[in-house]
């Protein structure tokens, strides 16, 4: 008995596989099937082209499930929609309402303190911000819309992604369960969730925020996980030796030491959010992305490129702010090393 134990798992997989084939055959349309089941063993022509009866019926149950979701949980999605939309509109209206010099001043202020009072970064970001409106005045409001969507999407990513990343680093089972999901989220074409997003949330900003979440949260989760696992074993042992509880080790040692990596994750998350928000213009999301789309649809190369440059500028702004903040944290957590360099 013991001898055959190693065949147990493959055997289960084989049964599932055969079950799938039977389901596929039974669900195939009669006109695609041979008249008799036994014909399969007499006439081998089906080995040439992939036979039409060998077709796993995934589309119909997915559609039915989706309809069920809309009918039964419509209110739930409506709630999410109203919450996110309320957040987005109030944020957008507030920022659009502010005079533009004030917005630039706020960006400069944030950059200056986030980068640890680095003048070069601040000046560069200020220039980029000014150029958003300078490229074309109508870009200004659109860039603000895009920024709001990206910020809300990022907020969602951070709230969900960092705890998941921590859970993944601490528990192998969670890790094994999450990794395939992350792979799926990163590789599935974005239109697969953009179009259902419209059915659930309607056209506009909310499906874009959801799409951003799906697309941009994996790197954040992965880098948080990596950051925490990369913390030196000795350091953790030392903290445990001093009698720190698991919680104290996490908050006092692991997270602070993993912060540079987590910041890198947030930075990646921002860049991917920005990429997604441009694609999301194809589902009616207002923002700088629809200028690119419009340029493309009207074969207006200049227009598309101009808007493309605006997106690049926006990306630089986001990147420089998060990057410089990450560098500052790194300097803070690894201060000792820096002093050593100074001595050398």
């Amino acid at each position, binding site marked *: 008995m013991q001898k055959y134990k190693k065949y147990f798992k493959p055997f289960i997989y084989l049964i599932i596989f055969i079950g799938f084939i039977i389901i596929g055959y039974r669900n195939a349309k009669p006109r695609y099937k041979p008249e008799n089941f036994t014909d399969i063993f007499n006439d081998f022509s089906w080995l040439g082209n992939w036979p039409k009866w060998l077709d796993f019926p995934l*589309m119909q149950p997915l559609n039915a499930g989706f*309809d069920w979701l*809309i*009918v039964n949980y*419509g209110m739930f999605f409506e709630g999410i*929609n109203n919450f996110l*939309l309320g957040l*987005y*509109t109030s944020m957008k209206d507030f920022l659009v309402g502010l005079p533009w010099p004030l917005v630039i001043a706020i960006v400069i202020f944030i950059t200056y303190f986030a980068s640890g009072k680095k003048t070069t970064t601040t000046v560069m970001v200020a220039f980029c911000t000014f150029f958003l409106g300078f490229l074309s005045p109508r870009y200004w409001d659109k860039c603000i819309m895009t920024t709001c969507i990206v910020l809300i999407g990022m907020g969602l990513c951070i709230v969900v992604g960092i705890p998941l990343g921590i859970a993944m680093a601490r528990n192998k089972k969670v890790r094994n369960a999450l990794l395939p999901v992350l792979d799926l989220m990163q590789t599935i074409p974005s*239109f697969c969730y*953009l*179009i*259902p997003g*419209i*059915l*659930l949330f*309607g*056209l*506009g*900003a909310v499906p874009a925020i959801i799409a951003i979440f799906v697309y941009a949260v994996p790197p954040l989760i992965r880098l948080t996980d990596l950051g925490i696992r990369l913390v030196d074993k000795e350091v953790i042992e030392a903290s445990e030796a001093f009698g720190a509880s698991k919680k104290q080790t996490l908050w006092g040692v692991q997270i602070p030491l993993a912060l540079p990596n987590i910041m890198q994750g947030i930075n990646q998350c921002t860049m991917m959010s920005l990429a997604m928000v441009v694609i999301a*213009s*194809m*589902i*009616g*999301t*207002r923002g700088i992305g*629809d200028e690119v*789309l*419009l340029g*493309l*649809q*009207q*074969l207006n190369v200049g227009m598309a490129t101009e808007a493309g440059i605006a997106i690049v500028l926006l990306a630089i702004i986001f990147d420089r702010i998060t990057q410089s903040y990450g560098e500052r944290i790194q300097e803070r957590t690894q201060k000792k090393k820096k002093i050593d360099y100074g001595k050398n």
Partner: protein
Amino acid sequence: MKFLRNLLLSFVFAGVMALGTTSANAACKVHLGDFDWDSANVHTAIASYILEKGYGCEVQATKGSTTPIMAALFDQQIDIITEVWRDNLVQLIEDNLAKGNIIELGVNTPSSTQGFYVDKPTADKYGLKSVDDMKSAEIAKLFADPEAPGKGRMTSCISGWTCYTINLVKHKVYGLDKYYTNFDPGSGGALDAAIAGAFKKGKPVFSYYWTPTGLMGKVDLVKLEEPAYDAACWKEMTAVVEDIKKNGPDVYKPTCACEYVNMKLTKAASTTFANNPANKPIIDFIKAYSVPTADVNKSLAFYMDESGGDMEATAKNFLQNNNMWEKWVPGDVKKKVKASL
């Protein structure tokens, strides 16, 4: 030795590649232009099936938005388009006809409608019959645009389609712009999904839409009355529309506006392709090609409900269940197509 072996291998490889390409060389090559809505896809599928099986051609189809695909046709990169919404593109097509870039090949679908639609339950409940009925803040509230407080939302065309600008002008002329946004859904799929999603949730819909489409058979939309079509009026409006397309919405000036004409969907070919004597049989076939609206709708219903999203199966189904196509092609081609079915 190693060098010699590599050389030999690369020769073999090159030889295989060359053989591969020559054997794929068909009697003719046709590049069809396709659009991002389903009725155009059906025609492209049927035409390419006949061209492939009947004429033995190598068919390539490129799908895209109106502007790039039309531009590719004018640029002679695409040979044939089987569904052209001519009246929406009058100016563009006439300019290019004058320049000799394209040749028109007659009517495909004799009648199609486009216009402003409201879902039936809402239309019945509030007695919405014409665009004038829409002009009230209370009605607009039903279709509230969550991103533009105080306004309703009319999902419109994609900004790349000419009808987006036509709708923009119509909104202004009808006075709808005070109450509704002319909302660009971004893509054809998104527009369909928005309408289908609203129906699934039982929410009011106010949208631009058109027939023949597969979705139209599944949802109950009521067309709103607009001022009757008048050729002179349409021409005046199109001039404003083209101006806006070129110079932005600021150049809008008051004009007259009327409903979309029940238009004929036409076919067109690039001049280079059409003037090549070798392509004459193909041009004759495309000239004869015409499918009535009702049959397009049937094919679209089959595509949506039965084919499982397989356009080639839809084309086959059309060819199996109709014999109108037999008149489009000469006898030998007909035999070949029949044999392949």
